[in-house]
């Protein structure tokens, strides 16, 4: 009886224990779920705050350009999910810092806030991505010349007598010098075709021009004659097949990106290269399609020939080329374009201990010592990673040719610098040694005497030749801070022994010497440097540059480049994000590398 009494209630106690455990785990679950919900809300709010802060940056850039720099920020602007505030700080004469903070749900009692800082300047961003970039003229190196960095050329590379490229070497498939198909307008029949925004109720976002190739060959690049309004972003350009007189969205032949930096406020042809080089057929219709997004204050114009002078194609626009059933609308006229097709076999040829310490990429590789990998169609006499190519996993025969690269500065960029220089006034050529030179256009030659030291504002445009005699030095005004400057010379540039160009003194600032001289017909040197010239960036898009004995530069871009006895080019990482001031007349745009989430 006693035993029975003691056993009473055990099930009840057990049930209490079970229920307690269940309650405990349930509370724990609910607590975990609530934590997860809070964490997710926090993450969502943080993303929204960053997006709001970025909206503030966009608004600030647009406002500064709309008010000629007279925008000082906003204390709070409410958007859908929150608000942002913007403040502007002047760094130097042409550079400002934008600080934008996004708040969710508002500046008062925010649940989340994030701050983004970015610097903007009046100027043009330029990316020099290679130590040496050369056009169709190619690169010749001899007698211990060295490139410390990578090389990209659209023409052949010849390496002689222990010359060395320490990075990778690329030679693109040779591009024919003239376009297979092209069209341009002539005044007074040139009109703007606006796209990348809503125009009179039409979302003119995707624009296409058809063409019919004259030959069956690979497509290398296209050039479009464009200008921009505000600061629109890069957009995608595709080659599409044809379907019933409109672009066929299911037949994309090639895709490339137009770099917005190369387009200016004035019309100019801008090159676009593709990720692949597909073959197009003679007599078949294809379409060049520009694919943009809508922005009412940052958009594009394509030069339009109102006389419809191109007989092998026609332009159209659409609001969305990728929609299930895209509607393409005719445009009266023809758009200005060039399309380059075909090509020639290109090569890297070496002799006497020529070395590439990275990888080599070209149609044909001959007599080279390559440290990493070799990518080619044809090879002879190459040593890759210490052995010849039979059964060598570092050899890659059958690799398609690299695609040609556009030059990092467009004709439009150069025109913008020239216009900015002209806005500073003009003077006749000079010979001597002024202590300072403001930004202006100089009609005639400039010759600096031996040992001359001069400080300049940029840009400067010289219509004649520029001669720096022995030991003369040109420095960019220190007020330019981190921005770089450019001297545009219509004629040739000669830099005698130990003459040099310097940036503002701030790291990342350079003074670029640019020659527009066309060496392609007469072979005359556009830029020539002698012994001891150093630490400069040289640019000659149609010209030949020669670096003589022991000249040591940072970056060289030319149609053709020759490096002889011991001369060198040593690439610096920061050259991929230079910002060139255009002086007071330019528009504000972001300085690459200055975006920072605080």
């Amino acid at each position: 009886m006693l035993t029975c009494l003691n056993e009473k209630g055990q099930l009840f106690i057990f049930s209490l224990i079970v229920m307690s455990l269940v309650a405990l785990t349930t509370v724990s679950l609910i607590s975990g779920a609530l934590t997860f919900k809070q964490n997710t809300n926090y993450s969502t709010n943080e993303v929204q705050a960053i997006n709001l802060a970025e909206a503030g940056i966009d608004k600030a850039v647009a406002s500064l350009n709309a008010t000629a720099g007279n925008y000082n920020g906003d204390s709070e602007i409410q958007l859908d999910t929150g608000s942002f505030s913007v403040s502007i700080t002047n760094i130097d004469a042409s550079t400002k810092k934008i600080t934008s903070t996004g708040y969710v749900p508002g500046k008062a009692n925010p649940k989340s806030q994030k701050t983004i800082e970015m610097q903007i300047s009046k100027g043009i961003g330029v990316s020099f991505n290679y130590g040496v970039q050369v056009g169709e003229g190619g690169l010749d190196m001899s007698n211990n010349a060295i490139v410390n960095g990578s090389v990209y050329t659209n023409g052949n590379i010849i390496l002689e007598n222990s010359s060395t490229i320490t990075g990778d070497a690329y030679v693109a498939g040779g591009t024919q010098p003239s376009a297979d198909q092209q069209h341009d307008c002539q005044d007074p029949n040139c009109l703007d075709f606006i796209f990348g925004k809503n125009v009179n109720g039409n979302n003119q976002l995707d624009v296409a021009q058809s063409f019919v190739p004259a030959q069956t060959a690979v497509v290398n690049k296209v050039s479009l004659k464009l200008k921009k309004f505000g600061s629109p972003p890069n957009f995608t350009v595709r080659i599409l097949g044809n379907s019933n007189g409109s672009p066929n969205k299911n037949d994309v032949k090639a895709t490339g990106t137009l770099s917005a930096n190369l387009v200016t406020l004035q019309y100019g042809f801008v090159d676009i290269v593709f990720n692949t080089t597909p073959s197009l057929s003679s007599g078949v219709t294809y379409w060049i399609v520009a694919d943009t997004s809508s922005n009412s204050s940052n958009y594009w114009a394509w030069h339009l020939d109102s006389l419809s002078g191109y007989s092998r194609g026609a332009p159209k626009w659409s609001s969305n080329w990728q929609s299930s059933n895209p509607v393409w609308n005719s445009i009266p006229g023809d758009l200005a374009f060039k399309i380059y097709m075909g090509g020639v076999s290109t090569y890297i040829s070496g002799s006497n201990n020529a070395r590439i310490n990275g990888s080599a990429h070209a149609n044909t590789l001959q007599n080279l010592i390559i440290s990493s990998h070799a990518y080619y169609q044809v090879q002879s006499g190459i040593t890759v990673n210490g052995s010849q190519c039979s059964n060598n996993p570092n050899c890659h025969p059958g690799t398609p040719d690299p695609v040609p690269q556009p030059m990092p500065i467009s004709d439009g960029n150069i025109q913008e610098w020239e216009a900015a220089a002209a806005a500073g006034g003009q003077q006749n050529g000079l010979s001597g040694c002024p202590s300072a030179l403001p930004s202006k256009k100089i009609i005639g030659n400039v010759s600096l005497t031996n040992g001359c030291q001069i400080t300049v504002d940029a840009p400067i445009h010289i219509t004649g030749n520029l001669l720096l005699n022995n030991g003369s030095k040109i420095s960019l005004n220190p007020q330019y801070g981190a921005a770089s400057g450019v001297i545009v010379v219509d004629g040739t540039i000669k830099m005698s022994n130990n003459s040099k160009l310097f940036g503002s003194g701030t790291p990342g600032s350079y003074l670029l010497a640019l020659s527009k001289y066309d060496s392609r017909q007469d072979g005359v040197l556009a830029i020539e440097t002698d012994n001891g010239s150093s630490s400069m960036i040289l640019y000659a898009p149609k010209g030949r540059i020669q670096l003589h004995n022991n000249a040591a530069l940072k970056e060289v871009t030319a149609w053709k480049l020759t490096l002889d006895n011991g001369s060198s080019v040593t690439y610096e990482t920061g050259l991929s994000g230079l910002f060139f001031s255009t002086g007071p007349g330019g528009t504000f745009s972001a300085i690459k590398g200055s975006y920072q989430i605080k």
Partner: protein
Amino acid sequence: MKGFTLPEILIAITISALAGVLLISFLVQNNGLFMNENAKVSQGLSLNDASSQITNAVKSASSIATQYPQSSPQFFTGAETLILALPSIDSQSQIIENVYDYYVVTKDPQNPNILRKYLFPSAGQSQRSSENQVLATNLSSLKFLYLDESGSTVSPSQAAKVNFSINLTTSTGINSNSASASGEVNLKNN
């Protein structure tokens, strides 16, 4: 003496046994549910944190590095390793020109089920502290794609944006829970 009859005791034992079995079953199911839901919560928190950190790092990066430039430890950018060159910052949190810290997201070299983040600041210049942090455990797959502005796959050094996807799988008894996060982020400083 008063007492229970055998049938009464048998019935009581049967009822008790049934109730006990039901309670134990309830407890086991509840525990399973707890483990299941707890795993989901843990996965969700890890994915939120990892996505947020990777997104902000990619936005701030100047470029995607092909490898961590120091000889040790060795990391190479690829489908399962992301190496970002972040602009270094000074003591005022301002960017130092042409100086970079390296941010690495990869599988743990010793345990591939752990997603780890490393930060290697530029010695003597950057004010960032070095980091070696677990972003997630129970990693089942990790993938980085390097894209240009048109969305085509390119080599990491030419990328304008990064697409990432992270999958976590947690075993909860005989079952397993999977959760994933993915995103596509532009390099704002590129």
